[in-house]
């Protein structure tokens, strides 16, 4: 897209003998909206803290504009952060919170000892401008406690952006908001990023949020980057079972690549679009639930029995048992439980992946209901995340 701004080179972070980041190599481009996505404990917050300067990596280097900044304290970095739960200063009002960073004399940046101190007029102008950007004009004298969650969120963004950073780090910025507000703020964040024209690095465990806002998404697990790509790439071309499962819903089954564009599952050969595998190489095959058409048993390429049906508004979540393996199928056709059905999959409905350490761990909907609950209960993940943060101290 444009030029490289931040690079992490061979970064490893160990806490109390536990490796949180493993040999991470990644770069961030200027003016892009990038999201670090992964389950709690995957190391995404740690990576953010390393960029912010709150954490020094155990090994490896951090570069900013080509300069190594490992030992640069946070107050000297051209980076600002929107913290989890915002970390607004409760004893200051909205105006003073936003003006906080501007009132602290900064190094001139040219190596001289002199500090730059902004005039009152300039501070005032910049604070008011920024409050306008986040639509909080007229809230100047309100106390933090009197604001709603969404308003506090805007103050936190304004407080960070008013310092004109090159990069804005956002640590689960929408985690404390309710569903509807979250949707609105996603739009808002995207708008602000485009208006300011700077890099946003966002951390979240919510894949929907990541897909909706980001130019680039980095999927992480167990301290390792699994895949980097645009939201479309990640969805359509997941690199392994973990990514396929984490981004959207996926049925993942064992398969064998018989030859280019022919994959075999359940002992049946199907036409697909993938190629470049060895002959007869065992692979993981991803079939997205919406890519499956339900047909009569006779017409079906595979035949199975419906074991549960959930009405979802636009479609039904239908669980079908194929030879002991349970698939999720999203369809607008209603098939009652216990009905025998056939399915058809077009060649572009298959996505073939190399085997990885995640093979066999995901993509079976036998325990569907439990998994579904967990995904929809953000508090569970929140708590785990909070615990993880505590350990990192």
């Amino acid at each position, binding site marked *: 897209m444009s030029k490289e701004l931040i690079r992490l080179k061979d970064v490893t972070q160990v806490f109390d003998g536990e490796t949180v980041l493993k040999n991470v190599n990644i770069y961030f481009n200027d003016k892009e909206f990038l999201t670090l996505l992964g389950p709690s404990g995957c190391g995404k917050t740690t990576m953010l803290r390393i960029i912010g300067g709150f954490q020094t990596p155990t090994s490896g280097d951090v570069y900013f504009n080509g300069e190594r900044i490992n030992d640069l304290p946070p107050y000297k970095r051209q980076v*600002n952060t929107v913290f989890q739960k915002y970390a607004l*200063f409760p004893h200051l009002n909205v105006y003073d919170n936003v003006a906080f960073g501007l009132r*602290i004399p900064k190094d001139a940046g040219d190596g001289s000892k002199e500090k730059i101190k902004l005039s009152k007029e300039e501070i005032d102008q910049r604070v008011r401008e920024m409050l306008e950007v986040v639509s909080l004009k007229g809230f100047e004298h309100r106390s933090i406690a*009197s604001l709603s*969650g969404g308003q506090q969120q805007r103050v936190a963004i304004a*407080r960070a952006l008013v*310092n004109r950073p090159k990069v804005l780090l956002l640590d689960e910025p929408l985690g404390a908001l309710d569903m509807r507000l979250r949707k609105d703020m996603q739009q808002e964040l995207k708008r602000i990023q485009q208006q300011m024209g700077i890099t946003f690095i966002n951390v979240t465990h919510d894949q929907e949020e990541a897909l909706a806002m980001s130019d680039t998404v980095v999927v992480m697990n167990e301290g390792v980057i699994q895949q980097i790509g645009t939201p479309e790439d990640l969805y359509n071309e997941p690199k392994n079972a973990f990514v396929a499962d984490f981004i959207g819903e996926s049925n993942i089954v064992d398969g064998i690549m018989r030859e280019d564009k022919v994959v075999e599952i359940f002992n049946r050969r199907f036409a697909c679009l993938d190629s470049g595998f060895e002959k007869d190489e065992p692979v993981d095959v991803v079939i997205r639930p919406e890519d499956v058409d339900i047909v009569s048993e006779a017409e079906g390429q595979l035949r199975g029995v419906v074991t549960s049906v959930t009405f979802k508004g636009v479609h039904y979540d239908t669980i079908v048992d194929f030879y002991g393996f349970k698939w999720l199928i999203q369809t607008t056709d209603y098939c009652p439980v216990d009905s025998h059905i056939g399915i058809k999959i077009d060649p572009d409905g298959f996505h073939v992946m190399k085997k990885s350490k995640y093979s066999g761990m995901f993509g079976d909907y036998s325990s569907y209901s439990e998994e579904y609950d967990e995904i929809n209960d953000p508090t569970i993940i929140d708590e785990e995340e909070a615990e993880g943060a505590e350990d990192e*101290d």
Partner: protein
Amino acid sequence: MKKNRFGGRALIALCFLFLYLPILLLIFFSFNAGGSSAVWRGFSLRWYGELFHNRLVIESVATTLLVSLLATAIATVAGTFAAVGIYSLSKKWRDPILVVNDLPMMNADIVTGVALCLFFVAFFRGWGGIARWLNSWQSLIDFPERLTLGLGTLLIAHVSFNLPYVILNVAPRLRQMDSNLVDAAQDLGCTWIQAFFKVILPEIKPGIVSGALIAFTMSVDDFVISYFTAGSSTQTLAMTIYGMTKKRVTPVVNAVSTLMFLAVMIVLIINNVRSAKQAKIAAKRASMEPVRENPRVVKFREWMATPRGKLTRRVTAAALCAAFLVTVVFLTAFTTSRPVVNVCSWGEYIDESLIDEFEAETGIRVNYQTTDSNETLYSLLELGGADYDVIVPSDYMISQLIEEGRLEELDYSQIPNFELIDPRFRNLPYDPENKYTVPYTWGTVGIIYNAAMVDEEITSWSALYDDKYAGQVLLINNSRDAFGIALKYLGYSMNTTDPNEIREAYELVADANRRGVFQGKVMDEVFQTMEGGNAAFATYYAGDYLSMLENNEDLRFVIPEEGSNWFVDAMCVLKDAPNYDNAMKWINFIASTDANLRNMDTIWYASPNTKALELYPSWYEEQYGEELDPDIYAIMAAPQEVLDRCEMYICLPRNIRKLYNDLWIDLGI
């Protein structure tokens, strides 16, 4: 159901009554026009007026304020940093340290007090060598070789027991604080130090303020720890009150206690209102729900943001700091300065205007302290925590102190007024060559009885052992007096060293006790009990009888025909007294005829000054415009023929002292 609730409420009311009734009574009697804490004589502010003229009280209030303010300030700053430090540790260390922090608060004050006292004394003992060494190679600072307990040790002690309270109050604020706040401040350009002052400090401020308030009330309240660490030259208000109650509880004590109670209550109310408000805000904050704001508060905050508001805030802060500094400087000047003499005497045992007069005349400041008994004084001296110059013990204690070499010989050339002491009171058995003492007062012990409860004239000690007055007799709570009287009644010497005679005396007392003659053992409670008409007989000092008479006219005093004890309290100087020459000046001043007359008039104990004894009746008439009742005067200063019947205590040998002690314990009561 309804009935039940009523029962519950009644129980709560009863509980609170139980808690507050004594304090309400104390406040009530502080407005008593009369001099008793038992008999109501109408409303008056007299005792409050007297309070503000009582220099001992004023001085100790100054000391208390100085120590409390300084200790609070130091402990608050140190405690805040300590708490922040503790919170920057890992969890593994943090929790045990907080437990260690709690321990001193749970610990008994007496243990803390004694420990600190012993620590200081031990340190002082080693200090001499260190000071000599320090002075030997540098002359910039002259380190004193001899250190004593005083304002400094008191301050250190107060800081040490205040610290945990500050930490205890600050720690929860740190725990509640979003740990990201510091990161956020650093993210916005603060160094850690800037973050501390701009973010952490405002965030934990409520904890610091309540910690400081609690530390302040703890400091003002403290008695036990102060008692052991203040030494002889310093006295806090609580110690002064304690000293006052030892003699008798005049309503001055009620007045000063009332004021102290109110002061502490006000501070606590302020603190509770503040923390209630804070809790509300914290709850709102936790629930993430917007708080509806009082428009007036919003307006005020907007005004505070204007240049004028900021200026006002700065001026207020500066004024408060200045006020604090001025108070501390003023109090320091008031409590320490000028040459001093440290005097230790009994409570209410001097006309206090004499102290002012002496100070005005000589420029020497008098640290006037009190203890409650010869035995307490002795244990203080033995502990090594006291550095008094002048003490005023009783005869038998003097002979013991001389024997142990604890007294310094007096320089009588500096005490010309010694010539005014009546020859009868010189060269007494406790100081046969009169090298160590100048008598202060003398008096007799006799029977005090309530004529309204007794229908005969009492002339013998026998009344104290008589079944007729079962449950009406107060036994003096001190083995020497109680057995001495019994010995006298049996016709023996009070100073006998014959164990059989002493055992016989014990049997007499023990038998009366078995028959239920005695209501109880009393010392200072004698005032309340006798004035209130709650007992018919007591054995006590003539001077105190005269004080009681003011509050109950039915009381009579008699020195029984069998004879009694007469005693002398004399001024002496401790060995190595730091202010020897000042002590001589003080003793000479107090021995003057004028001082003796005024003391006699205030404390009702007889003077050993020939002229004062002679002049008192006419002096009294001049002062009050009425004649002094000669019978009263005869009680105050017993005539020689009465004294001839009486014996003075001399120091008993160790084995006899032990016998007294054992028998006294056997008596039980």
